[in-house]
């Protein structure tokens, strides 16, 4: 990193007001959220009838969106915890990006589960009548824990930055100043305070790894604990976790590019960062590909009768286009782009990141839906529309609204707080100079 004066770093990294693009972005996200909210109001009023979910396909894009959110949130633990504990320093400017993606995604994962419930008004039953034997209750427990740890991992490194921001009273305006003071006025940059937070962050970094594994393993068990072809797999936990790290890292690539170009952060999110993150994505895509080979090739070799309809539907049948699209956009093409040095330049890596995230969203859809269309017994004595599934506009609006909501949380966070840790950047620059 170049030598940059402390004052310059602060000025570069302080949160900036929305420009014209920013305002348009926020308004369009708000519009999507409003449409989603209207669709959800309709769903509350008329019941899940407004969805195209029916008795056979009883889980659809709400659940696949939930799996997607849980998956993408795992990146927080990868960048903040795994890289931190392995003493990797180049990732410091990316930690807050990863952590806010994690917090916002896991919060919306929780919301989308409530959206999927037939009786959201009875949500409290999970606490008054909760059965510890049910994987859903495990999921509720680990997701809440993960959200809490992620919030703390977001908050503790923010404290020294809050102190810096409180200094810029005129720039902040009345409300933000109050918020910063509320969150961080007790922070005095004392060595003891640093000692405590460093220790806390270390402990949290260690605890978040098993919790992160738990959230996605348990999410995979919502499927793997059933008998259904396509879900009944001992491979599912590892398959889900490897896919989760991949999609989260893809999302980080996108966010890196957007923040870098929009806030002119080229000096902080450097080409080197894209190079290194690109390599990580290649590794993760290869691992995920490995688990996909296990997940599909082994049952396809045997072609048990119950699996046959499901597998053939994916390989050559009604889901073939979506299946091969997801496999190639989530894994094959990003690997081909990012494996070359030229592909790890910011723009190319950004494209690869988008491919990973879009492909992964479809991948989650393909994990949930096709299985439900291939029950053990024939689909009999049901109306014709029970035998197919394509989401209704309400489902698209709600799923789209939840994605927009997650992006909105990230956007507002970057408006209010420095998206690249100021204090840590200064410290690391100083250390760099000493060497």
């Amino acid at each position, binding site marked *: 990193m170049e030598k940059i004066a402390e004052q310059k770093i602060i000025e570069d990294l302080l949160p900036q007001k929305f420009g014209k693009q920013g305002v348009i972005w926020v308004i369009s996200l708000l519009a999507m959220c409003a449409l989603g909210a209207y669709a959800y109001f309709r769903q509350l009023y008329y*019941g899940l009838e407004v969805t195209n979910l029916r008795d056979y396909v009883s889980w659809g894009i709400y659940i696949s969106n939930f799996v997607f959110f849980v998956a993408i949130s795992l990146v927080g633990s990868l960048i903040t915890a795994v890289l931190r504990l392995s003493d990797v320093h180049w990732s410091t400017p990316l930690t807050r990006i990863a952590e806010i993606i994690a917090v916002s995604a896991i919060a919306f994962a929780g919301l989308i589960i409530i959206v999927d419930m*037939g009786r959201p008004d009875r949500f409290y039953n999970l606490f008054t009548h909760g*059965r510890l034997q049910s994987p859903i209750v495990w999921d509720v427990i680990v997701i809440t824990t993960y959200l809490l740890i992620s919030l703390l991992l977001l908050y503790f490194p923010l404290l020294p930055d809050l102190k810096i921001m409180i200094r810029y009273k005129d720039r902040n305006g009345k409300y933000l100043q109050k918020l910063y003071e509320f969150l961080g006025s007790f922070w005095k940059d004392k060595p003891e305070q640093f000692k405590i937070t460093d220790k806390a962050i270390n402990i949290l970094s260690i605890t978040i790894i098993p919790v992160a594994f738990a959230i996605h393993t348990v999410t995979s068990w919502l499927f793997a*604990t059933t008998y259904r072809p396509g879900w009944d797999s001992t491979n599912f936990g590892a398959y889900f976790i490897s896919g989760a790290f991949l999609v989260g890292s893809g999302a980080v690539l996108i966010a890196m590019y957007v923040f870098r170009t929009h806030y002119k952060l080229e000096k902080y999110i450097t080409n080197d960062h894209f190079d290194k993150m690109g390599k990580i994505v290649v590794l993760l895509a290869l691992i995920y590909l490995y688990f996909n080979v296990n997940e599909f090739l082994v049952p396809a070799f045997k072609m048990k009768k119950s699996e046959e309809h499901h597998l053939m539907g994916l390989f050559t049948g009604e889901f073939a286009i979506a299946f091969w699209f997801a496999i190639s956009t989530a894994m094959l093409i990003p690997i081909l782009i990012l494996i070359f040095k030229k592909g790890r330049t910011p723009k190319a890596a950004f494209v690869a990141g988008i491919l990973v995230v879009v492909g992964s969203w479809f991948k989650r859809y393909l994990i949930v839906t096709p299985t439900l269309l291939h029950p053990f017994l024939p689909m*009999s004595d*049901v109306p014709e529309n029970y035998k197919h599934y394509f989401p209704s506009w309400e489902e698209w609006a709600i799923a789209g609204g939840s994605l927009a909501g997650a992006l909105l949380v990230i956007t507002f966070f970057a408006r209010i707080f420095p998206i690249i840790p100021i204090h840590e950047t200064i410290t690391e620059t100083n250390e760099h100079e000493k060497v």
Partner: protein
Amino acid sequence: MKTNENSRRDFLATTLIAGAALAGCGTKSPFTPEEVAEIIPSGEMVKLLSVDGEIIEVDKAFLKPVPEMPSITNEEARIGIQGKKFAMVIDLSRCKNLKKCQSACNHMHHVHPGQNWIKLNAMQEADKTAPYWQPTTCMHCDEPPCVKVCPVDATFKRKDGIVLIDSDRCVGCRFCMAACPYSTRVFNWEEPKLEKEIADQPYNCETSVPQKKGTVGKCDFCPDMVRQGNLPHCVSACPNGVFFFGDILEDSVTNGAETFRFSDLIKDKAGYRLMEDLGTKPSVYYLPPVNRNFPFEKEASEGKA
């Protein structure tokens, strides 16, 4: 010595239960025609709602007071009928796909139009094997996958073997529907279309009526009928006697007209259960579709339905 004592106690218990069952069947059997001739019309007419939903007028003298049914609390409904272990036997060789079981079930439980708790599957294991009709109810498994996954204990297994749903507790997550390998569960996607009198009834796990929006429903083995000593609606509705219902501890099943020793029936006709390899241990047994009473006519029966 101890084994002797046990077997003696078992014997006594079995005899007592059998005796009670016989006494129960004595006068109130639904299959003996009513002695209508003895009743003298009073001339006073009463308006009633028939089973077909039509308003009919009947002479008051023909009306018999229905014995008051003890109201079952939720706790009692969750425990079940003591000393019983219910099972069903479905004789596939007798099924003609008339769907009388289905319509009776739908009618009595006010199942949402288009949905069915009993489904009739046209089965054919392989190209060259014989096709047959297979009615499926809830299997009331002894290792129920649905009960295992329920996060709120809304679906539960009773001591008498019946798996029920508490629609006042169900949160509508539909995990049970994903878990059930027999695809037996249906969901109330919208507000159930019920007449006001039905909709206003207090919900009871044993009647499964009225169904509630946003919750799961399924075949309940009609525990309300069974508690009164009657057969489930599908059993009494089937004109071909396909369905047999009974108590495994009593070792007897009946379709109303015929009664068999359960173990003999299963042994003699090589009864089996669906998807035995999954380890769900269903309470519904099937008799193989051998020497069928009716030819398999898919087109004809589908046209009729």
